[in-house]
């Protein structure tokens, strides 16, 4: 009896040990990956404080004294474009998310003639590569006189970006319990009220996911703004940072990399507010084919 108990205890202890070493192992591996993934970021922060001579002397040496002027230079050059980016990307994201939420709700909850046709009409766009329409889109923007205005960014962004969002919203909203909407309807809520007061609040995680996804992709878009925005006062950061980097790349590496850090800051701020909802949204299972 005692022998048996001892045996069980021993086995349990052994299993415990094995489990513990397993957990340690996977934690260590994950930590290694995390560290590797952060290398460019650390490198960026570290190098952004170096002077030109410190770059050539020893790259790994600590930037002593730190050269804060690098940030001054980057700020003076890029602040205008950063503000532009924040404004254009915010408006663009707002448009995308509101359009996606509305159409997602309609396709998830309502029945109406031509529903499937309209759904396929939107969904088929996911198959169409952006490069196919690059040339005609540019010419269209030119022809309707939107070139070099922010509308040239907002309208095509909203139009193209909403499709994926619509699809995700539809999946998410159709997983919401139908009984909620039925009881709302019985209580006399209009369709629009049901959308606004029931579907939207419940869809917060997926909306946050959409906000983050679209912000990141719009913020990083540099091909389209490069084509349609001409004046530097209206240009967005993703394009400006290239010009800035080739301008400073020969003479002042520190200032160039300080510019990289600065260009990252808006996304860091945005992410710190929305990361929890974003992760919740993506891991909710709505993101699948």
């Amino acid at each position, binding site marked *: 009896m005692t022998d048996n108990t001892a045996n069980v205890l021993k086995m349990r202890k052994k299993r415990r040990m094995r489990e513990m070493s397993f957990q340690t192992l996977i934690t260590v591996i994950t930590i290694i990956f995390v560290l590797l993934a952060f290398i460019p970021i650390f490198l960026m922060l570290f190098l952004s404080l170096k002077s030109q001579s410190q770059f050539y002397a020893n790259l*790994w040496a600590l930037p002593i004294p730190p050269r804060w002027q690098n940030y001054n230079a980057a700020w003076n050059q890029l602040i205008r474009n950063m503000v532009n980016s924040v404004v254009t990307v915010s408006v663009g994201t707002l448009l995308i998310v509101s359009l996606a939420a*509305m159409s997602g709700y309609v396709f998830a909850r309502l029945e109406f003639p031509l529903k499937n046709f309209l759904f396929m009409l939107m969904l088929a*766009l996911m198959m169409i590569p952006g490069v196919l329409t690059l040339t*005609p889109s540019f*010419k269209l923007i030119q022809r309707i006189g939107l070139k070099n205005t922010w509308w040239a960014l907002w309208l095509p962004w909203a139009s193209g970006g909403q499709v994926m969002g619509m699809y995700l919203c539809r999946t998410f909203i159709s997983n919401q319990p139908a009984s909620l909407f039925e009881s709302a309807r019985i209580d006399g809520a209009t369709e629009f009220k049901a959308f606004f007061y029931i579907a939207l609040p419940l869809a917060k995680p997926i909306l946050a996911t959409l906000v983050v996804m679209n912000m990141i992709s719009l913020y*990083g878009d540099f091909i389209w703004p490069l084509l349609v925005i001409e004046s530097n006062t209206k240009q967005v950061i993703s394009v400006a940072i290239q010009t800035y980097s080739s301008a400073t790349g020969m003479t002042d590496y520190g200032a160039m990399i300080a510019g990289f850090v600065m260009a990252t800051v808006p996304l860091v701020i*945005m992410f710190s507010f929305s990361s929890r909802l974003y*992760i919740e949204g*993506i*891991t909710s299972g709505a993101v699948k084919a």
Partner: protein
Amino acid sequence: MALKKTRAAALNTVNDKPENAGQTAGNTNRVTLVIAVVLVLAVIAATVVHVYAHEQTNIFGFVEYGASLQNNRILVSDELDMVYLGTYQNNVLAFTREGDPVWSSDIGAAIGAMQFDSHKQLLIVGSQNRNVYVYNALNGEILHTYPVNGKVRDMDYNPVNGQLLVAAEASATSSTIYILDIDSGEELFSTKLKQPAQGAGFSRDYQYIFYGDSRGRVTKLDLNGDKVADSKARTEVVALSVVHETGDVLVLDKLGNLFKFDESLNELYKLELEGEGKALGASYDGHWIAAGTREGDIYILDGSGKIHFRDRQNYDITQVYFGEDISYVVTLSPELFEFSTRKLDNINYMSNLSTWSLIALIACALAAAAALIVTFPRSRDLAKRFFKSIYRHRVAYLMLMPSIVLILIFNYYNVFQALYYAFTDWSLATRTMREINFIGFDNFIKIFKEGYFLLGVKNLVIMMVASFVKLLTVPLLLAELVFAMRTLSGESSRRRYWFRLLLVMPMVVPGVVSTLMWKNIYDPNIGALNTLLKTVHLDSWTHSWLGNPDTALGAIIFMGFPFVNSFAFLVYYGGLINIPADLFEAARVDGSTPLWNFFHIHLPLISPQLKMLIITTFIGSVQDYGGVYLLTQGGPGTATYVPGLELYYAATKFGQYGYACAMGLLMFIVILIGSLVNLRMKTQELN
């Protein structure tokens, strides 16, 4: 009995007012039928009016003489009843009004301008061989030859004292404006300009000279050569014309902008015409203005700048000549047109009539269709049901409206444009949309012949395979690792939360920034990679990573190491945590191993996520060129060229729009096939 009843009802309906008739469905509504018939008659009438008015606006008639030559200038003498043609093929031809040739002369160079002295019966011809010839207008005898310093671009003539104004272009940076005495050839005035003057003319009182130059300036000189006034067109002036009666100055520039200035060169108005400006003419009283473009468009405007008539010919318009009765349009071809100057007065009315009759036609046709629909019970019911259904589902349609409208304008419109342009020669050299030619599959043949696109395909395949490997290994591994983290009691651990956050955080670095940062890491001199290799004394391993054709592609693929794709990681992870726990429970009871779990539970249950990631990665990587564009621009040589980059260059740098569309179409087909195959494969697996 029943029959009687229905008949009574029918009678009732007919006698009733229309709205009552509408309510008793099932009967033909005679009132609307009558309306429909009337409307159909109106449609017919409108069509007749439209066709007639349209015909009346068609004022041009072909002129037979001068056929087979590229005509450049025309001049008509009403006194002698003669027509003179100056051609681009070095001839001066004289015809009677009836078209019988009288004389001809070959002067060995294209004719730049012609003037006429009706009193002395002289034809004055300015040629591109730097001579001004004075002909006897009746027999073609050359009376004088006056050399000028440059190709003659434009001339004007003062018949009172026989002074000839000549604008001669010596080179791209110099030209001269002369005034010659026509009898002696004496140079009365000359001034040198630093730019070619394309158009020149005397003022109404012959006391001033106007000229327009290639910088887009319009200048008024007095006869001492002093500038009195000047003004600006948008670009290079191609023609200048002074209205004899009012003294206003008309200027056409290369972008098709038409300006009207008063005598002191104050701008009266400006108009934008479509096409590249080429020729300009004005009637003697300034009542009519005509402008021609290089694309063959001809515009006829009234003095206030309102366009009354517009037509298109096949060739460059070289001159519009206003005669007293007959006016001529000269094209750089055998095609010479005449039109009656008087008919122009009518044209405005007729073109209005044509437009309004067309509008009336459409409106009547629609109304007739509506009336017919209301007339018959079955169609009436259908229409009613249609509108009712739309009204019932109005919320759905209203909420979808913005999305659909945007998509139609900014996506589908462009998609169809691209499909069409892929088969055309649309390029930077195309001046107007109407000049685009359909060229069948030439663009596609070019894709396979020219090689850059195909060269890119090899790199693309390598990069795509790499991105699939990257997608299917590290993020999945990390998702499994984080998913496996639990406390000793088997509950999910706090570590999960933190690692999840840490692994997602790197994605806040914008793509452009992280790419540029990697470019810095690869820098041969101060880059972190080479420095690291030197620090560990592997100097021989250092490379100019992006500058060496052997390593450039590898360097681009390696960018982003260790390939923690935050989005894919989260999606995988989301798939894993959504697997019902009882599945694992059941598997554990059956004595499963972790490996068995992975292949038989994890993979099948996250296959929807896998499918989504694979499709999006596929679509993304076929058209991706952002990284290559930022890092190497396809170089060194073509070591990192990808099809998307070739498309981008064709659409931007090289301006081969049609070709770019063809490449886009090809890539779309590849993506479509790939996606369909992918979708099919997975559904089979799931079943």
